[in-house]
């Protein structure tokens, strides 16, 4: 599968297909369904320095070609992840990307430091560790009353700077489509030394239960993902790839090999598959082959040949 090989921030990828944060857990349950060496890599569920129990009430709601979620960053906390999950994940034959969340600068810094320390320790123990860190800068901000954090360039800069100083892993910054000026934030990430950016996270959205006369989700708004958002996500990825020189990981509604090729042609170095995993839990088992077949049909001998062609 040479024609699919890709590179991301110095990390070699077997193929450009990564599994998106929050839609693949810690990967091990899926490893029982198909071999994960079919994938370029997997991103962990978003992790925070301390455990989070997530949101109460309804957490999922389907929309036309979309999925709304309000998981609320439920996760076991970084220490438990490092002591129990990471080890199992490193036995998988694919790249590992840790997704880091937080709702204050301090929390991000603390989380990044824990990961840094553990990865160094593992290295000195001769053990495999994570390959990349993905910094999610649009998490719920608990302090400011459930608002999203990191949507303006100012706030975002602080977080990126602190984490960049803390981690020695290649650093991707995951951008929110709800940001006021996405391109400016991406440029800022480049300036602050990020090795790449990934986008998009979910779109802030709403659903109302007309019978109950209230929002379906307790927190009012939730995040929209899935094929519905693909056209907007593709536009954003295209805009960002034209503005920065660091690699861009594209995602948002990808549900076929042809969608992947669109993101690559828009300039993405790699892509992530999120909601599609729920439409087809076996998606990752065949997407790389489907991409290769499609490339043959279209006379494309390597992704490099068409990356950013549009």
């Amino acid at each position, binding site marked *: 599968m040479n024609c699919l090989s890709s590179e991301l921030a110095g990390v070699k990828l077997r193929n450009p297909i990564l599994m998106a944060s*929050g*839609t*693949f*857990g*810690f990967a091990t*349950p*899926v490893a*029982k*369904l198909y071999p994960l060496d079919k994938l370029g890599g997997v991103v962990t*569920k978003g992790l925070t320095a301390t455990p989070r*129990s*997530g949101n*109460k*009430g*309804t*957490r*999922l*709601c*389907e929309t*036309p*070609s*979309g*999925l709304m*979620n309000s*998981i609320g960053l*439920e996760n076991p906390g970084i220490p438990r992840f490092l002591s129990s999950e990471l080890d199992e994940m490193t036995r998988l034959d694919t790249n590992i990307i840790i997704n880091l969340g937080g709702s204050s600068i301090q929390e991000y810094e603390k989380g990044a430091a824990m990961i840094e320390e553990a990865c160094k320790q593992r290295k000195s123990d001769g053990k495999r560790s994570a390959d990349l860190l993905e910094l999610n800068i649009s998490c719920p901000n608990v302090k400011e009353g459930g608002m999203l954090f990191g949507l303006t360039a100012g706030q975002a800069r602080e977080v990126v700077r602190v984490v960049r100083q803390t981690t020695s892993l290649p650093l991707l910054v995951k951008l929110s489509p709800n940001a006021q000026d996405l391109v400016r934030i991406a440029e800022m990430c480049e300036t602050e030394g990020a090795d790449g950016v990934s986008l998009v996270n979910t779109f802030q959205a709403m659903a109302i239960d007309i019978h109950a006369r209230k929002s379906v989700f307790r927190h009012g708004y939730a995040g929209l993902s*899935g*094929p519905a958002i693909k056209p907007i996500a593709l536009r954003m990825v295209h805009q960002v790839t034209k503005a920065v020189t660091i690699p861009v990981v594209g995602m948002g509604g990808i*549900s076929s090999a042809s969608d992947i090729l669109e993101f690559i042609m828009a300039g993405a170095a790699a892509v992530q598959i999120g*909601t599609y*995993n*729920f*439409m087809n*839990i*076996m998606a990752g088992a065949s997407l790389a082959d489907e991409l290769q077949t499609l490339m043959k049909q279209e006379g494309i001998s390597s992704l490099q040949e068409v990356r950013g062609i549009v």
Partner: protein
Amino acid sequence: MLTLMATVLSNERLTASVFRLAIEGSFHGEPGQFYMLRSWDKSPLLSRPISIHDLTSTAITFLIRLHGEGTRLLSRLTSGDQVTLYGPYGNGFPKPGGNVALVGGGMGIAPLLFSAKRFPFSKVFLGFSGEPFAVASYQALHGDVVFQSGGTILDAIDLNSFDKIYACGPLPMMAELRRRTAETAAQLYVSIEKRMACGIGICNGCTINVGTGNHKACTVGPVFPAEEVDFDELLEL
């Protein structure tokens, strides 16, 4: 765990809104476990969690109530159509020792046929608010079937005469059963329904808060010991 494209054997309408879907193949599973089903391509987005209703060496059967778009599509399947099944998922009812009561309310009777088959010393209680359905298949299997339409089936159960009670039905019914068994020696297990995206523990969509902390209904559940379940919180949704 299995992922299978399979063929519909039959699809019978039992009432205006309940149908029994049989699918060809040699499937696995334990009483109380479920499969994720879909018979469509991309819309609706998610597969639908459905309990094992019956299992033989050549077929699996589901008992389904028409609810929204997904179950509507499943209800239209006819012999020869293709369905995608993922499963079996989750933890079902524990293997009983002693006397066990299987208590189903409305659509909650679905997992109890296979349970009655596997737990031959059980007694079956089926409660319906309207027209009863599928009762004959329970009776064919099992001498001990009590069913009732209207009122509450709970009144028909001598709660002190069972070691274990396995229940599936509307939350208020299960909450009431919890209250009524609080003082008895019977251990109550309940099957809880939550919206599910993945069925295998990777989306955190189905978390329920039980006494021992957060658990995923799709992997740790759907069956939980009733004393761990916070019915008030669930009822609030």
